[in-house]
């Protein structure tokens, strides 16, 4: 009975991991597509002011994919890692604003 149970559980976990792997491959394909879109937009004759925000958003989405799918931040037990990582992102944002905007003011 118990043996049966553990094998069931093993199968369940294996199945879950497989499904997750599938999601990760889909994520990867999306990342490749986003990258190609970004490169193509830059190669096209579109206005820079139009392209830059879009490629930045594409980059941010890609990074989100990396964090939540590849680095498993969507899993349980990642509350504190997420808190500290976003703390870093907040400080990073301040640094970039300061150096990119304030320096030549």
């Amino acid at each position, binding site marked *: 009975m118990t043996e049966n149970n553990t094998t069931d559980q093993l199968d369940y976990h294996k199945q879950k991991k497989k499904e997750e792997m599938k999601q990760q491959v889909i994520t990867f394909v999306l990342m490749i597509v986003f990258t190609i879109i970004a490169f193509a937009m830059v190669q096209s004759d579109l206005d820079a002011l139009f392209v830059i925000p879009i490629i930045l958003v594409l980059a941010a989405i890609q990074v989100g994919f990396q964090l939540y799918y590849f680095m498993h931040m969507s899993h349980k037990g990642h509350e504190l890692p997420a808190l*500290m990582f976003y703390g*870093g992102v907040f400080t990073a944002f301040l640094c970039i604003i300061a150096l990119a905007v304030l320096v030549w003011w």
Partner: protein
Amino acid sequence: MSDHDILNPKEMPHDPEKATLEGKNKFIGFWFFLGGETVLFASLFGTYLALRNSTNNGPSSEDLFGLGLVFIMTMLLLTSSLTSVYAMYHMKNNDFKKMQVWLGITVALGLAFLGCEIYEFYHYIHGYEFTFRSSAFGSAFYTLVGFHGGHVVFGLLWFIALMIRNAKRGLNLYNAPKYYIASLYWHFIDVVWVFIFTVVYLMGVL
């Protein structure tokens, strides 16, 4: 849990990287470290953004950057990120051999990326006489991209050391956390690269 159980577990748990207290500490600590690394790279990005037009009459980003090579480098690094995900998938299934193979592929892709980067720098230095000392833009460019390249080198050495050290004994609860955080580090390198190719190269040719 005794030392023997850690080195020779009877049965691998589903999350071997977090099965011991040491593993949990490493997992949390390494994520925190990545939070700090985010600030480190942000400071470098900020410096680069402040100085990207300070070419001092030397070559500018439009003169230098060729998107073909950058596209290849991006694909190499993105793919290596996926292969290290595969490695971790096999780690969780306790399939040590497959994990080592996928990590081997990851290392190979990383080395190819590094080769491209070295070629790129060589090309700039000898083709355009664009160096670290040419202008503030040159200093900022080589520092930002070079810090990322340094992280790639360190990540590769880390993977290789782990693979050689554990080649004979296989997976256990002592080295599983090490593999796991090394792969986290590798993903983070890719995260930084996504912003480098967007902010430095793509915005540089616009």
